[in-house]
């Protein structure tokens, strides 16, 4: 009985991303960087060494002009629900799955920078700090006080805006509400101007991700490897759904990150 109550209180946060609605504007990418104090690109940063907790990839059907058709796929940490590969390989226990939310978290304070987790992540959703974080003079005044900037030499990744979750929990506690009724969405969800990204508790059948998970046009990236990602994508286009089983959308560079 107690175990059942505990299970009911456990959330399993997930996301649904409607690719047919994504315009590729990149609002989610910059909103994420603003929220999580991700610095602007270092002079030497490029597609391999940049830090984008959520990255919008442009994919296409492989045809030539004028038959080429494109779509935009936002890729972030897929928040593996089972046997997260990054957690299994970390020698420092710097990767932790929160049992209360199902969120796969990263603790930069514990990270040694060995990058085993980056090698293990099948979604290329982890990023290494090659340089000390730096902002143009004065711009550090715009940093979010709820998130500490990370130092050079550690790995970081999306954590569903854990700072926001903590703030929501505090608000709920202050108002005498239960934790389940917190009003919390990550920055990318809030910023998406087309409503393509929706967030919610997969344990609640009425939530958008739970409904999307049951939808016929939904799919997950690399579903066959059995990591049970909690990000559900949707598209009515067959060629888009087929690309979901490829190692990485778009560029096809399996080892594209440093």
């Amino acid at each position, binding site marked *: 009985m107690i175990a059942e109550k505990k299970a009911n209180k456990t959330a399993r946060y997930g996301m649904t991303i409607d690719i*047919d609605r994504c*315009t*590729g*504007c*990149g*609002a989610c*990418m*910059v*909103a994420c*960087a*603003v929220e999580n*104090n*991700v610095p*602007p*690109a270092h002079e030497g940063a*490029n*597609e391999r060494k*940049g830090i*984008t907790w959520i*990255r*919008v990839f*442009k994919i*296409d059907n492989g*045809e030539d*002009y*004028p038959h*080429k*058709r*494109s*779509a*935009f796929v936002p890729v972030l940490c897929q928040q593996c629900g089972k046997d997260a590969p990054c957690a299994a390989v970390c020698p*420092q226990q710097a990767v932790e799955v929160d049992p209360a939310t199902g969120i796969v978290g990263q603790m*930069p*304070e*514990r*990270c040694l920078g060995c990058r085993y987790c980056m090698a293990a992540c099948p979604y290329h959703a982890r990023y290494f700090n090659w340089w*000390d*974080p*730096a*902002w*143009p*003079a004065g*711009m*550090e*005044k*715009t*940093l*979010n*006080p709820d*998130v*500490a*900037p*990370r*130092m050079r*030499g*550690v790995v970081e990744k999306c954590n569903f805006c854990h700072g926001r979750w903590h703030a929501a929990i505090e608000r709920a506690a202050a108002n005498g509400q239960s934790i389940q009724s917190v009003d919390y969405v990550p920055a990318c969800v*809030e*910023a998406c*101007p087309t409503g393509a990204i929706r967030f919610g508790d997969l344990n609640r059948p009425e939530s958008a991700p739970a409904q999307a998970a049951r939808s016929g046009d939904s799919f997950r990236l690399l579903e066959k490897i059995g990591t049970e990602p909690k990000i559900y994508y949707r598209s009515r286009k067959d060629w888009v759904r087929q690309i979901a089983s490829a190692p990485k959308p778009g*560029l096809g560079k399996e080892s594209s990150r440093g």
Partner: protein
Amino acid sequence: MNATRRDLFKFLGGSAVGALFTPAPWRLITDTALWSENWPGIPRPARGEIRARFTNCALCPAGCAVRARCVGDRPVALTGVAAHPLSHGALCPFGLTGHHLPYHPLRLKQGPVKEAAGAVANALAKCGPTERVAVLDLRPGRTASWTHRRAMASVKNGLYLAPPSPLGSSGAFDLHKAKTVLSFGAPLLDGWGTPGNVMAARENFRLIQAEPLESRTASLADLWLPIRPGAEEALAQAIACVLADRKPEEFAAQTGLAEEQIVSVANELANNGPALVLDGGQAPAVMELNRLLGSLGRTIVARREAPVPDAWKKAAPVTSLEAAADGSIRVLLIDESAVGGYLPWGAIEKKLVRDNPLVVTFAWSKEGYGRYAQYVLPTTVYPEVFDDIPPAVDSVVAAFRLATPLVPPPAGMVNPAEFIGGLAGVPAGDALRERADAIHKSGRGTLFTCADAKSTPLREVKPADFWKALNEGGCWLDAADEKAGSPQVAFPEFSAGQPAEESAEDLPLVAITCETRAAAVPLSPLMSKLYQESHLGLAANHAALHPATARACGLKDGARATLQTRCGTSPIEVSLDSGVPPGVVQVAAGAEILDLCGGPGGRPARAKVVPA
């Protein structure tokens, strides 16, 4: 037992190896990591009272409502206001990072204000009888624009210039009433009008996008028509032929589309109305289609302007740059403080007198016309700016909202309206308040307040409360004008199609610019996420070519090259994209490129790309 030196080394060595099997070194590493996280090189976010403030984004004509999360008096995050009747909670990437702009490395913090004032006074005194003094206002319709117009009405030979606008201030496109939208290269889903409003209406209309490239809008359209570069007018005329029961083959051949497809599109526009035709380049034949389809009064509606004090109505008329005589402008004052349409410098330069014209620009960086002006005077930048934002092209009623400062501006900033008004003795200091009072006096419309998401009839609001609400991000929306008919739009007669310039052997390619909203101003350093750390956008000074075209030019992916047009050259970096039509070079619309290739949606320029 005698302890030898060898024993001591053995002991130390053994201890070192043994220590590795204890938690101590790992603890040391963790502690070092904790320490390094707080070393002086890592900035510490400021702490303080967290509160929300509201304003309106001044970075583009959409003027989306903004909720700023502030720590103390500094904004740390900007988001949209979901209940807002115009912007519906949307904010684009430029708007989301607007609070970084005051700290941009390219931001101007001082300028030669006294020298510029002296030079302008001198030039005005020496102005010949046929020479003009002109203000070029990149975003007309603001209260500051009225000050400019009043000043130009008072100055001898004054001229008020503004970029071309499809409907001027007298009309608007009503997307919510449209069932079929045909867009000729207008970036409808990529920043056109008010993005939130477009998305709110998107479910209700079928979108047909006609343009040579598969833009973001084209990739999400219900139908993409990949026409030849510069064939917009030909397609419009072909559709017009079908609507008039004539054969379109003459024009259809110019578009690169099958005749049956054009007939099908024309029938859809005629049968699934109300229809709306939009154009990125405002070509006459394209806009004429709206008249043929009966869009006037249905999806193109008349819009009253927000009231202004009676004393302001003696103002210079709005003149397009094309209407100004070549070689006639002696003094040109360019107000770039509010970003709007960018006119290629070549078009402006030919209007200036040949001997020593004076160009003064008001801007927050030198990236725009500051490259050509004798004086660049620094202005405030959003979110320091205190200005109003006129309604966007898709706002069917007049609106009045303010961009109020979220951070205090540094000393030494110049207010363009005060500077230009001062030349003619026109006071500009309280103009915004005067206009707010004039709107309140009219008693029309409603006031939307962001903090409580409520709309209140203006009649129930006191003048002081109205002004206070406007300063807190509120928005006045005019009442619908029941008597309004069709907007007064002068649709020119059909003209011959304007394909790209004649093919030339020396310039074998066609250059097409892809539009970005803030083309002529620096973006937040965080936009590197889109342009440097991912391949999401085409960065400034980057160009995309079809692999076959690149091969013909002797270029590879990532090669450095030079883009050449009839207006000059510019260094570029080449990327390959099989979605770009062969024979086309797609370039990002930075100010430098726009000067070379013309504005987005304009007539495509001939170009050449040669390896650097």
